Structures are given as C-alpha cells and as structure tokens.
C-alpha cells in the first residue's frame, strides 16, 4: 500500500452517538453554522440525546425550531451561550431557557466572535479591535489607543470540542465545505482540543488535490458520515 498522510489511521466513527459520547459535563462546545446552513445537526441531536450538562455553547445563533442547538436548550443542557445573533424568530427554546435564568448569554459581535475563535486556534493571547469600542458590549473590556485609534482587548475563545459540518472529507480528515456552509466551521475546527465533523460524503485518501483542501485533516479527529446512524 502506498504511504499516505497519517498512515491510514481511521478517523471514521460509526455513529454520531458514539462520536460525541465522551463530551463531558461543563464542556465548551464550538458549534459551526450560520442560521441553518453548515450546522452539524446530526452531531447536535446526538449530543442532546447524550445529555452532557452545563455546556457552554459557542455558535453564531442559538437555534430555531426543535432540532440542533434548540434541542440542547430544550433539554436544559446549556448553561452559557456565546453568540452574535441569539434573538431570531423560532428561537423559543433558547428564549425560554434564558427567561428561566438557566442560560447566561455572552453577546459577541460576529466578527469578534469569529476572530476570538481564530485567535485561540492560532495560539495567540488576545487582540485589539475597534469593534464594540464605545458600546455596552465593551463593558469590562480593557481599552487602549494605538496610533490614535481606540481599541478594545478581546481574548481567545477556545473550545474543548468543536462540532462542525463539512461537505466532503477524505479518510485523512481533509475537508471541503460548500458555499456559505463554510462559515465558522474551519476556524472552529482549528480552535478545539477535539474536532468532530459531520460530513456528507467520505472519499478515499488521495482523491483531493492538496490545493483543493479547505481544512487540513490535522485539525480533524473524528468523522461521522451523514448516512451513518
């Protein structure tokens, strides 16, 4: 057999249920997606059934309807949400959990949310941004002026786990995303200790040209194919 990256180690898990089974109470979970696009619904549903409690969920939105993030809020598994756009129609499960005082919300501007996650993935200690300066979302943030421009300090946002969604993976975990389903998924995959990917289709190692990989497999720990249970 020809030598391949990672020596043919199998990252494929037979079910979403097994792939998320060791996520522990209190974990910080980065969840990809924007609206309903690029959301790892299968993994989230498995996590809701697994019932790890006291989770911190980092995701742009807070779920709508009954599936995905909404199922986590409905099941009372989330104690903190970090999001940029939590209040949208159909978010009744988040809203109810918030109104019950069960969930703390950290509202983060969307670009800062993405950059804080990237900052963690890049192993940096923090960054200065103009975003939010002079607003109530800067409360509690240190400020500083650099070359006449005023910034606030933002700190990295790292996950214990990232649950992400991709279109295609090769067996080495190299990923491709489709259109706006890319969104937060690659940066989150780089910023967690354990990255679990729900993927539409798995192809053999070597089927992707190196230049066509959106996210290298070194950032991917577990793959769950959408057709699996």
């Amino acid at each position: 057999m020809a030598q391949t990256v990672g020596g043919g180690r199998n990252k494929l898990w037979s079910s979403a249920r097994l792939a998320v089974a060791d996520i522990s109470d209190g974990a910080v979970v980065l969840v990809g997606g924007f609206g309903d696009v690029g959301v790892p619904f299968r993994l989230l549903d498995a996590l809701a059934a697994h019932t790890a409690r006291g989770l911190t969920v980092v995701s742009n939105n807070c779920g709508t309807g009954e599936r995905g993030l909404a199922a986590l809020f409905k099941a009372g598994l989330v104690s903190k949400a970090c999001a940029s756009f939590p209040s949208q129609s159909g978010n009744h499960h988040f809203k109810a959990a918030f109104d019950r005082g069960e969930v703390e919300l950290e509202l983060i501007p969307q670009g800062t949310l993405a950059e804080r996650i990237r900052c963690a993935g890049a192993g940096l200690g923090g960054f200065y941004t103009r975003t939010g300066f002079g607003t109530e979302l800067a409360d509690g943030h240190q400020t500083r002026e650099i070359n006449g421009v005023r910034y606030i300090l933002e700190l990295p946002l790292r996950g214990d786990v990232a649950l992400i969604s991709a279109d295609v993976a090769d067996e080495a975990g190299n990923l491709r995303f489709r259109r706006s389903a890319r969104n937060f998924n690659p940066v989150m995959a780089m910023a967690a200790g354990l990255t679990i990917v729900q993927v539409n289709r798995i192809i053999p190692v070597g089927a992707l040209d190196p230049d066509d990989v959106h996210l290298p497999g070194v950032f991917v720990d577990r793959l769950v194919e959408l057709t699996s249970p």
Partner: protein
Amino acid sequence: MSPKAGWALDEIAARIARDLEPGSCVNLGIGMPIRVGAHLDPAAGVILTSENGLIGIGPPPEPNRHDPDVIDAGKGPVTLLPGASVLDHADAFALIRGGRLDVGVLGAFQVSQRGDLASWRRPTEPLGSVGGAMDIAVGARKRYAVMMHCDKSGEPKIVQYCTYPLTAPRCVNRIYTDMAVIDVTEQGLVVREIHPGLSLADLRAVTGASLLPLAAN
C-alpha cells in the same frame, strides 16, 4: 405636511442602489438594506458581499432553483454570479474590517446628529442581536444607515443623542429614510434630498436634531 408623505421601501432601496459606485464592494445588512440588491444596475458591477462569506452575490434565485447552501446575512436564499468566491467567517470579517469593503449599508433604530448608530437592541428588550453590525460600522469605508424617518409611534429616529444602546459612535456617513437623504458632516446634518411632498420645515418637524439645507454645506 401629509403624515404619509414618503418613499416606499423599494424606492429607498433604489435610491441607495443609485449611490453605490460601479465596481465597489458593498455589504447589505439584514432588513431594509438587503432590499438594495434587487435595485442594482447589473452593468455597474457592484460587488455584493455578506458577512457569512459570500462575495459576488447575484439576484434572488428562481423559485425552484434555490441552493440551500447559498444564503445571505439575512439567511435568505441568494445566487452567486460568475466570478463569485467564498471566505470563512474569520476572513469574511477581515474583508469587512480590513479596508476593502467600500460601503456598509446598515439598518438603524436611531442615528444621532454626530453619526452615532443604534441598531442592535431596543432598550425595552433584554436580548439584543448584534450580528455583524458593530464590525461593519467600524470597518466599512463608508457607512450608510437606512431606516424609517420616525418610529411606529411617530417619534423621530434622527436624534441629538441616541437613547438606544450604540452599535458604534460617530460612524454613519449618510442616512436614508422614507422622507430624506441626509449627510452627517462635521458641520452637522445636511439634507441632500427631501421627498417632493415635504418641505424642509416638514422634515424638521419630525427630526430630533438640527438639519442644515444642502446650500449651507
């Protein structure tokens, strides 16, 4: 003044569309701004981008040809033009903050006379939704705010000082409403255009800050 004198939403959107320079790179915010896309002259080649990473957004899809992975910031279905491309979220906001976004069109609850923008939370709501507005408000080279001139109870939304939580201080360059187009300048608010059914006095009566006629600029 007729209390109803004013442009329709699509007229406002068309007015904004005319002000976008050919070839410029533009972000349209959720709500009223997103309507601008439908009024762009295809020949002008305005490049529409969205904070979820799409560059080169085209007209809405035909009813049965909608690609579920192709949505704009408002989560509505869109299309991609030939020459389109995709960025991840970190890079999409690098584009927004990094100097290559020519115009951000932002919805607004209030705009102050010095250009403060309030757009993400009403004081009566415990939950806001900031989305990408704060990044666009500081990152785009020009920031256009679009809103109805008055709120539903008839209160002016152009004010001396914002009473709603700010999105960013001193960021709005121009305000588009159903009644007027107003520039925020060092000298104050300058009226560039008024709905033909209104006088400057009519406009002043529904505006919470001083307005200068264009000639005064």
